[in-house]
């Protein structure tokens, strides 16, 4: 067993004196009391020393006791007067005070020093010889006035211990206090353990290892409980980890990832998705329009005409269209994409044959005032399945699976509305902590008016899920802004394996 130097010194000293308080050991070893305590702690863990606590009683003098010493005992005063011949109680009362006389007489009777006869005090023989300084009460009070004393100390000096009780009864002239005291005592193991003679070292050097001389040294044990300096590993942002988790879920379901541009034309962001040109979402108060670049190029005039036709008259898919006149100028307006569905429809325009399964996770922008639950930008999880024979219940199937994999157990589907899907649905999950259903985005089957201009074959299941709300739930945040204005301390402390 390797002991540290101060542990050895304490142990050696205890071998001599068997048992001592830390204070005493500190004095004898020249260590501080704290040093001795630390050493005794580790010695006791090694079973070399026994640390015990004992309760120490001490008697101390109280206010009343000090008064008795200073002003004298009442019985002594009364006796003195009686010895002088003043035996009449009422006269004594006038002279010494009623209270003093009555206390004095009480003790005189109790100690058998005198008797009361027709209002007078007659002393006994004992009373005649009485000297207060010879009493235990007097002696004890004087001892305690010097310093508090342990019971053993007192008992030797008194005839009997009756005086302790008596003084306590005298209006608490003395009292007892109790102190806890720690003692260190050597154990059998402590007596017999060999204290090595080797050099004790804390750190190994490469020379120690190379030369093998570490064997000749004694390596000092570390206290494994002492806290070490904090380390903060470099790590990913918790939100990024969450996005990666979602990415993985879709990859595992066989989806290919696609990406688009943050800056989009209204054509791809709205018109290609059959969003009417006078739709409120297209107004300046909901969408960020871009002044530089201020105009987007439209695709081929063939495609533009198909879109125009669909909007105005419903094209050739037995739709009625929105009516009104569709404007190319409006379609050229540049926006920050309001949803990643712009990415999807661009992809579909070039990949219109089933099967296709693609997804994207990217930022979308809405003109929202910043507060705890709104930001002008948010991540959207977009996905589509293009299949020959897919249907609405399949869409619900993909959504259920995704939310189940994200750890939500209760999922429900409500009717929804989006200009580009039919049927449309809003998935909701039940969040135990909130006690309510939380809406997490929208989904549906792309309308014929959306797919026909691109000659898409089959049906397209589509969803665009906002992830901000989900992130707040998963990361335990109350304020969406914290995701993008990171408190470094939060990043340091957020367990990277929690997600």
């Amino acid at each position, binding site marked *: 067993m390797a002991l540290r130097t101060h542990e050895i010194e304490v142990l050696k000293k205890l071998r001599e004196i068997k048992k001592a308080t830390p204070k005493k050991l500190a004095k004898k070893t020249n260590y501080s009391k704290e040093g001795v305590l630390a050493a005794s702690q580790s010695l006791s863990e090694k079973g070399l020393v026994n640390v015990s606590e004992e309760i120490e009683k001490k008697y101390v003098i109280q206010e009343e006791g000090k008064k008795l010493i200073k002003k004298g005992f009442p019985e002594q005063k009364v006796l003195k007067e009686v010895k002088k011949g003043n035996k009449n109680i009422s006269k004594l009362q006038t002279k010494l005070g009623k209270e003093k006389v009555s206390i004095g007489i009480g003790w005189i009777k109790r100690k058998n020093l005198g008797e009361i006869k027709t209002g007078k005090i007659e002393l006994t023989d004992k009373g005649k010889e009485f000297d207060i300084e010879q009493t235990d009460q007097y002696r004890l009070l004087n001892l305690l006035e010097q310093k508090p004393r342990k019971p053993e100390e007192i008992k030797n000096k008194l005839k009997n211990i009756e005086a302790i009780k008596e003084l306590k009864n005298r209006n608490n002239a003395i009292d007892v206090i109790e102190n806890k005291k720690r003692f260190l005592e050597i154990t059998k193991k402590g007596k017999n353990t060999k204290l090595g003679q080797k050099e004790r070292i804390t750190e190994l050097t490469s020379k120690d290892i190379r030369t093998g001389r570490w064997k000749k040294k004694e390596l000092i044990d570390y206290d494994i409980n002492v806290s070490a300096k904090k380390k903060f590993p*470099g790590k990913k*942002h918790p939100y990024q980890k969450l996005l990666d988790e979602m*990415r993985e879920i*879709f*990859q*595992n379901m*066989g*989806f*290919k990832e696609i*990406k688009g*541009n*943050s*800056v989009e034309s209204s054509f791809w962001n709205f018109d290609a998705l059959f969003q009417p040109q*006078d739709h*409120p979402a297209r107004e300046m*108060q909901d969408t*960020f*329009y*871009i*002044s*530089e*670049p201020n105009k*987007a*190029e439209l695709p081929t005039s063939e495609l533009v005409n198909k879109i125009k036709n669909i909007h105005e008259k*419903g094209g050739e898919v*037995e*739709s009625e269209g929105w*009516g*009104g006149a569709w404007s190319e100028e409006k379609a050229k307006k*540049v926006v*920050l994409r309001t949803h990643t569905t712009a990415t999807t429809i661009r992809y579909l325009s070039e990949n219109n044959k089933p*099967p296709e*399964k693609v997804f*994207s996770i990217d930022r979308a922008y809405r*003109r929202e*005032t910043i507060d705890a639950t709104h*930001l*002008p930008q948010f991540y959207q999880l977009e996905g589509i399945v*293009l299949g020959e*024979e*897919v249907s*609405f*219940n399949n869409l*619900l*199937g993909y959504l*259920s699976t995704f939310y189940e994999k994200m750890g939500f157990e209760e999922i429900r*589907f*409500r*009717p929804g*509305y989006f200009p580009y899907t*039919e*049927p449309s649905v809003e998935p909701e999950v039940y969040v135990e902590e909130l006690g309510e259903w939380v809406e997490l985005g929208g989904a549906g089957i792309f*309308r*014929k*008016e959306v797919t026909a201009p691109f000659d898409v074959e089959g*049906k397209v299941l589509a969803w665009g899920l906002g992830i901000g709300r989900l992130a707040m739930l998963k990361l335990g945040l109350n304020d969406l802004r914290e995701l*993008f204005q*990171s408190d*470094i301390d939060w990043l*340091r402390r957020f367990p990277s394996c929690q997600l």
Partner: protein
Amino acid sequence: MPVVKLNKKRLENLVDENIDTILENIPMLGADIEREKREEVDIEFFPNRPDLFSAEGIARAMRGFLDKETGLSNYHINDSNTTLKVKDSVKSVRPNISAAVIRDLSLSEEDINSLVNLQEHLHWGLGRDRKKVSIGLHDLKKIEQPFTYKAVDPTRIEFKPLGHEQKMNLNEILNKHKKGQKFGDIIKDKKKYPIIQDKNKEILSFPPIINGVLTEVDTDTNEIFIDVTGTDKKAVNEALNIIATSLAEIGGEIHSVKRDNKKEKTPNLEPRVKKLDNQEVKELTGLDISERETIDCLRRMRYGAKSSEEGVYVEIPAYRSDILHKWDLIEDVAIGYGYDNIEPQIPNVQGIGNTHPIEKLGDKAREIMTGLGYREVMTLTLTNREKEYDKVNRKVNDSVSIKNPISEEHTIFRATLLPSLLPILEINQHRDLPQKIFEFGEVEHLTKKFAKDCYHLSGVSLHADAGFTEVKSIIEAIFCEFGIDYGLKNSDDKLFLEGRRGEIIFEKEKIGVFGEISPDVLKRFDLEHPCVGFEIEIEKLIR
């Protein structure tokens, strides 16, 4: 989206069902309960269903959904002797008008509130803030037919608008009246403004701005003249149909209004007809549903539906102009069936999962940076010129700019990442050093014709011993991990200190900068320790 305020008691009476059952079923009909109070409940409906913007309309739908009354609601239209003259002068101003008369009404305060709310929701939802459609309701007793819709010189006509005691001319209304100031923009550029007047030239309305005091509707009103004006005929008629049928739901009798010069009469509540093939219902919904069930579901959603030789014969109520295509009907079959009764099922569609090359690049960058002890941060992509350029000693450059920013903080799309990292250090001054953070993310570059997302990697390190050699080793480590050779050149980027800054050259092009950040810049972020940083257009490494 429109939030409809509903009095619970009134709704219970209209549906003939207790409120708990109604509220339990509302979400499955396609709405969201916003908040519930003791006597009222606020429900958000979708903008495509303006027929649900009133208690009467909701009750009509709910009675069907709860199987209390299914199929088409039949509204009888009586002929009235009311005539509406439309002058050519409105053609270039606000061309469309439709009108109806409702008789035999007995309106409570609650009824009137509901009517006014419906009118406001329609102004918003169908009317695009009165631009496309605006509605006027008038106490018919106070006026005399025939009515005339025409456009007039704004200064020649005067009347008392609602909310004012004095007569005002049309210009004064636009300038001084609250509603004039709010909606005036819709017609301001016209030379003449539209009005509706009666036989005696009393002014009923100055659409789309305000009605006259004369025809204000109150609880004594039992006959109403409805005018709907606008720029889109279809929307105008739909609004009229919704208002007229809502009033019929509370006991009103609908009477038509005829146009003087045409045979046309309004309202026209004839249902539109579409044929539905049950096979298509099955294919779109994935439900194994019989034609009989399809018909039941449609009737539950208040369509007329019956079997015919060409499939299911569907009559679409005149207030449902959101139905553009067969699939809209099929959605309603699914809603009638109950979304909660549909079994989710994953189909067998083949696909091979993969990650986009940019995200793979991001993964690599994150692995390298976290390995080097950097913590990832994410910042907002919108910023302003001051933060992007001035504050970091860079010259203002062309950037993707927002036309309608919501605050001065967010007027451009960031073109670089590093200026977004310094504010993170700024808000973390009280945290322990060293602070090493990085971001991988998109910035926006203007191209010759448009703009393009580019992915950058940037990092900063702040601590008492931060210096040029530290950031140089980071750059070397990154490129070593990518296994890519690069060149270096002295830089003149004033974000960094002169003599302690470099440019990274890859394939003869500058793709990055690094160095010790200038104390001038640090001071602007209240940073008092040395700081080094770098930024790489990392996407260019995988071209």
